[in-house]
């Protein structure tokens, strides 16, 4: 059986390649012919661990095309365009609606249509009604499926999903055989529910995670103020069965990446419209914004006694390790906020746009970034940073301040070479600054 994917941004790309790796013939469509040409040549637009290898292994079962007519042969078509959001986390669903209309109009046939994109509650029902004018048999072949990919771990999560959440017009009816066959290839539970429940389930997962992040960040900041250490507190939480070992209990620089913010904003908007209380969600968003500036405040705290125009070294540009994505990256937010102070940055994968950051220069090694720097900010916890030679770093730098939110570096080792090392969730002992 052939499975179709429409929209080859991150979600569509990962999902189509993973589906091909399960033995299905896959037609992967995108309206951008250049993207399809590059994908046909195995050139991926962004780094995702394991994806290039999976693509190489499944290449013979994949057809990348800019022609929607090729989807006519598919029993199931997944619409997997990542929903764009603005700076306030509001979704723009117009590109997805256009994509669906184009494909249904041009591909023909009667495939099962599955919306895999991130959509708010009510979207799939209205889409089905619009497409088929409310005709029951046709609109019943429209489904929404919840994606729970995590950038940087997308392949792992797509290959081994915990469950499938499927929104249906009639949750009591059996799934169409073609769709069921695709889902069963992954060997996990399949939860059928009405459209709105499935769409809200996706948001519910993210809001739940966002509150965990916010609670962690709130308590980590308190640790910094009262002399506790969150790295000592967190294991106690994770051993509590009601919280669990996989809980989001690591402090961070707010909620990054865009997906959680989008779903928080969706809940806030829905709550306003329907008159339900969303003060918790508003608090999460406010706390996220506040914690995002943690690095900025601490870089300045290390610069407080410095005059002139100090150089700041930044390690890491991607919004998290093992990806080249920089959208909503705290590193870029920091670099932007430090202008016009001079920045020297390094990242193993992500690139800095020199036009957008004229005060910053990207260099090719971590050590090079540190030469003459007053302060080092480690904004993405790439594994290679934790194995750096701290004595060499110390020799390179003009100052002795390190802002290391994710504790890439060992605090004791930093102290041994007289670094003033600031990390999330822990108060640093007062120490003098180097000239």
């Amino acid at each position: 059986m052939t499975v179709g994917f429409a929209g080859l941004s991150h979600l569509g790309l990962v999902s189509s390649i993973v589906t091909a790796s399960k033995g299905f013939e896959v037609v992967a469509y995108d309206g951008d012919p250049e993207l399809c040409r590059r994908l046909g040549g195995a050139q991926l637009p962004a780094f995702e661990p394991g994806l290039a290898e999976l693509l190489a292994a499944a290449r013979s079962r994949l057809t990348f095309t800019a022609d929607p007519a090729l989807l006519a042969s598919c029993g199931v078509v997944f619409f997997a365009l990542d929903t764009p959001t603005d700076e306030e986390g509001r979704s723009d669903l117009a590109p997805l609606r256009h994509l669906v209309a184009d494909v249904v109009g041009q591909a023909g046939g009667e495939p099962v249509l599955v919306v895999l994109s991130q959509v708010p509650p009510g979207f799939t029902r209205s889409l089905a009604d619009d497409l088929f004018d409310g005709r029951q048999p046709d609109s019943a072949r429209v489904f929404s499926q919840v994606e729970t990919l995590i950038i940087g771990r997308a392949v792992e999560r797509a290959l081994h999903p915990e469950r499938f959440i499927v929104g249906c017009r009639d949750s009591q009816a059996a799934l169409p055989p073609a769709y069921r066959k695709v889902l069963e290839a992954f060997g996990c539970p399949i939860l059928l529910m009405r459209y709105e429940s499935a769409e809200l389930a996706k948001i519910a997962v993210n809001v739940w995670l966002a509150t965990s992040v916010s609670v962690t960040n709130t308590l980590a900041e308190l640790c910094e103020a009262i002399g506790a250490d969150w790295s000592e507190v967190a294991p106690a939480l994770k051993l509590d069965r009601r919280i669990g070992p996989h809980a989001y209990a690591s402090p961070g620089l707010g909620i990054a990446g865009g997906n959680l913010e989008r779903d928080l904003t969706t809940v806030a908007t829905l709550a306003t419209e329907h008159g339900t209380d969303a003060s918790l969600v508003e608090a999460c968003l406010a706390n996220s914004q506040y914690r995002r500036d943690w690095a900025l405040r601490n870089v300045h705290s290390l610069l407080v006694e410095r005059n002139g125009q100090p150089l700041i070294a930044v390690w890491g540009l991607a919004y998290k390790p093992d990806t080249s994505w920089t959208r909503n990256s705290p590193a870029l937010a920091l670099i932007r906020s430090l202008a016009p102070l001079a920045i020297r940055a390094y990242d193993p994968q992500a690139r800095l746009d020199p036009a957008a950051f004229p005060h910053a220069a990207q260099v090719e090694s971590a050590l090079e970034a540190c030469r003459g720097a007053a302060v080092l900010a480690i904004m993405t916890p790439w594994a290679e940073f934790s194995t750096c030679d701290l004595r060499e770093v110390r020799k390179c730098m003009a100052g002795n301040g390190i802002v290391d939110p994710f504790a890439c570096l060992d605090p004791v080792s930093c102290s041994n070479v007289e670094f003033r090392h600031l990390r999330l969730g822990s108060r640093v002992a007062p120490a003098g600054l180097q000239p």
Partner: protein
Amino acid sequence: MIEHLRAAPKAPARVVVLGASGFVGCDLLQHLRELSLEVVGLSSCDLDLSRSDAAERLAGMLEPRDAVVVTAALTPDRGRDARTLIHNLTMAEQIAAGVALRPCAHLAYVSSDAVYADGINPVRESSWRAPGSLHGIMHLAREHVLTDAARAAKVPLLILRPSLLYGARDTHNGYGPNRFVRTAMTDRVIKLFGRGEEKRDHVSVRDLSRVIGLSLLHASVGALNVATGRSRSFFEVAHLVARLAGDGVTIECLPRASAVTHRHFDTSATLKAFPTFRYRPLDDGLSEVVKEICAIRA
């Protein structure tokens, strides 16, 4: 958050300071002159903003390329009642009408952190504005009056909300560093309510002037808190002042009249707006105040 209409600093054609004889206005005039800006200071002797013809008179004094800084207000030491509130609002009404008659190039209003609700920490520019005093209500109402006027006249508006200010020439004598310094030097005593547990963010009036100066150079618009980001208890401040004032200063604790509250600021917006600006540490600022008062007395 504020936004700079001029990325590179450039002197405004002229700066007109309303309230030039007040605590903030005086210091600001001095600072702007140190920056070699052309400055005109107007005090209530030059222009009584509570009079019904003040708008026309102000309009007659303004030039289109002027930057106008509003520091004029009756401060709480002159009254905390409704009459003071109305008086201050009348002044704002006249300023708004004057700007409408003669739009200027830039308008800056020195408001107060009293516009924020009590008990919310850390305070940031987006914090809930729900003042708990007539003084705070006055500043919030003035912000609205001037915002509407500036929007209508297409004048870029900056609102600055300073935390507690201190400085040698302070006339308010409010509870805090200013009063502590005075009583320490005259009576060799500092009186605290309770044990002075309340934490506040104390800002040197010099630093407020520096922030205003930078904002004028960059033609900044929006709202910005003026706070150091480091709150200290009155107890700490009292001990600091006692040390600076020399031997023999005692600290007395009086019965507390109200519950302990704290105020802290998130200063991220200032760090983003002015990355090279540094607030002077409280120890240094108070040391300067003590020296200045000694010099004035001598």
